Structures are given as C-alpha cells and as structure tokens.
C-alpha cells in the first residue's frame, strides 16, 4: 500500500457516521437528542476530528497543500491529488451538510413545518445539498415560517427555560 494513500476503511467509516446522523434525523425529526445533540453536535464534531487529523497528517505529505491552491479552481483540483486532502474536502461537505440538515430540522420543529415537507427537503439535502437548501428556503417562505425562524434565532438566552423566563421577566419589561 502506498503510504500516501488514505486507508479506504476511513472513508467508509465517515460515510457510515454521516448515514447514522441522517437516519436519526429522518426517523426522529422532532426529538431533541436526534436533531440537536446527535446530528447537530456529536456526529459533525466527530467528523470534524477526522477532518483535523487528516488535514494535519496529509497537508505536509507530497503533493503537499499550499494556501495558494485556494486561489484558482485548478489549484483546488491539484490539492485533491493528495488523497488525504480530498478526504478532508469530503468530510467538510458531509459534516457541515449534516449540521445544516440538523439546523433545518430544528427550525422546522420550531416553526411548525409539516413532517412530509421537511422529509422532502432532508432527502434532497442528503443527495444534492444545494437543492435541499433551496427547497427548504422555499418551504420556509410559505405561511411566514421565516419570520418564526428569525424570531427564535435572535431571542437572547436566559438562565432557565426561555419561554418561562420571558414570562417571568415581563413585569419588569412592562414598567
């Protein structure tokens, strides 16, 4: 085996981890352990550790990475001659797409989006992420869901449960 090749098993482990995240999102979209802790934090974070490991070990191997390569599309392709760096790019796609998919699921839960619409967006995101995000943006435009999402994305956090705390804090606001 060429020492500059990545063991194929690592690639399969990464894809399997990603798959677990997506299955959890599709099967339990309204459960917080699935749409936040597992698919939104734990699995993207594990894939990010693979990413860091692969980046550090392969960046300096031939043909080694260079920041200049980011400046042109041909440079990006040259970068991917290095299998480890190609793996890093794939990890970037699957980890960040899963994190974005988990975010979409949470916002669907928070804005009362029907499950079948969310499922369509999620499946599209797994296959072609750009199409899935576009579908989500369109679905969220219906019935003012973007406004609801906008709301939950700017309310400040409070010590205890947010909704209870807003109510508790109200008398002071009223004064």
């Amino acid at each position: 085996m060429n020492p500059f090749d990545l063991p194929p098993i690592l690639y399969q482990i990464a894809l399997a981890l990603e798959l677990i995240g997506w299955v959890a999102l599709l099967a339990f979209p309204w459960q917080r352990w699935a749409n936040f802790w597992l698919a939104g934090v734990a699995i993207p974070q594990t894939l990010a550790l693979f990413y860091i490991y692969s980046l550090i070990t392969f960046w300096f191997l031939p043909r080694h990475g260079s920041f200049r390569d980011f400046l042109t599309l041909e440079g990006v392709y040259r970068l991917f001659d290095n299998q480890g760096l190609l793996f890093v790019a794939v990890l970037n796609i699957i980890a960040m797409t899963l994190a974005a998919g988990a975010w979409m699921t949470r916002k669907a839960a928070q804005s009362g989006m029907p499950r079948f619409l969310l499922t369509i967006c999620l499946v599209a995101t797994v296959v072609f992420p750009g199409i899935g995000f576009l579908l989500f943006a369109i679905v969220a435009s219906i019935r003012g869901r973007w406004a609801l999402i906008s709301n939950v994305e700017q309310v400040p956090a409070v010590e205890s449960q947010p909704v209870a705390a807003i109510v508790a804090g109200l008398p002071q606001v009223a004064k």
Partner: protein
Amino acid sequence: MDPLKFPPILYFVIMAVVGVGWLMLLLFPRRHWANFWFAGVAVPTLLSLGYVILLILFWFQPPQADYGDIFTLDGVYRTFGNRGLLLVAWVNILTMDLVIGAWMARKASQTRMPYVYLLPCLVMTFIFAGIGFTMFAVAMAFGERWPAIAALEQMKGVKANAFAIAPEGAGKVS
C-alpha cells in the same frame, strides 16, 4: 464553444459572493440582518441557486458523472475530473460553511459569548471548517453555553416579535 472553460472564471465570482457573506458576518456579528438574513439565508440561498444551475449544466458534460462514484474516494476524484462538478462540490463546501458560520455567530450573540472568542472561530471556519467548528464547540463548552443553546434550539417560534408581545403577557402573569 467549450462549456468547461467557464468554471475557472465562475470560481472567482462565487468566491467574491461568499467573501461578502463572511465579511458582513465578521463586521456585524451581532446584527440580525447580517448574521441571519444576509449570511444565514440570502447568500446561502443564492449560492444554492448557483449550485443547482451548475449541477444541471455540467452533470451531462464529459466526463459524465455517476452518482455511485461518491462511495469511494477514487470515484470522487474521477468525478472532479469534470471541472463543473468540482465547482459544484466547492460551492457545496462554501455554502454549508457559511450557513454554519452564521449559525455560530447567532448562537454566540444569543448566549452573549464575547466577540474575542467568536472571531477566531469564524475565521477558522472560513479557512478550515472542521477546525473552526471544533474551536466553537470547545469555546461553548468552556463557557457552559451548550445547555442554553439546546434550550434556544427547541423553543417554539411565536408569531410576532417576542419582545413586542411581552408586555401583554406580563399583565396576565402578575
């Protein structure tokens, strides 16, 4: 005319678009128009639109893509021999990194994480997303902010602005 001549030029256009998104995020990390509407919704949606157009235009160009190729690293490399599809993958990376960067900025704003900790996370997410995301997770863990984020990520959205409806509810409570 060879359509595969366009991706190298489009690369600069796309980098410029995503660069504006990141610039706004770095300059106005606590402004809702920047960290949600602009960097979190508008620019990623625009990039996704570019993604879809590029995907349709270049999927059938030689070397013709095969979806089964994504299951091995060699297959992925073969797919990227088509520069149009390489650009599609690059747009995918840029879009999702910006979505997550904007989300990080919003959570930092909502949990009052100091900007000095957020800034390096954002810069690293732009350059190497895996490192930036990990730095953010660590910074959030040190500040014990994860439970607050978990609570924010499950509260129900309300129709009007939460602050605007607050006084009405207040009377009933007291």
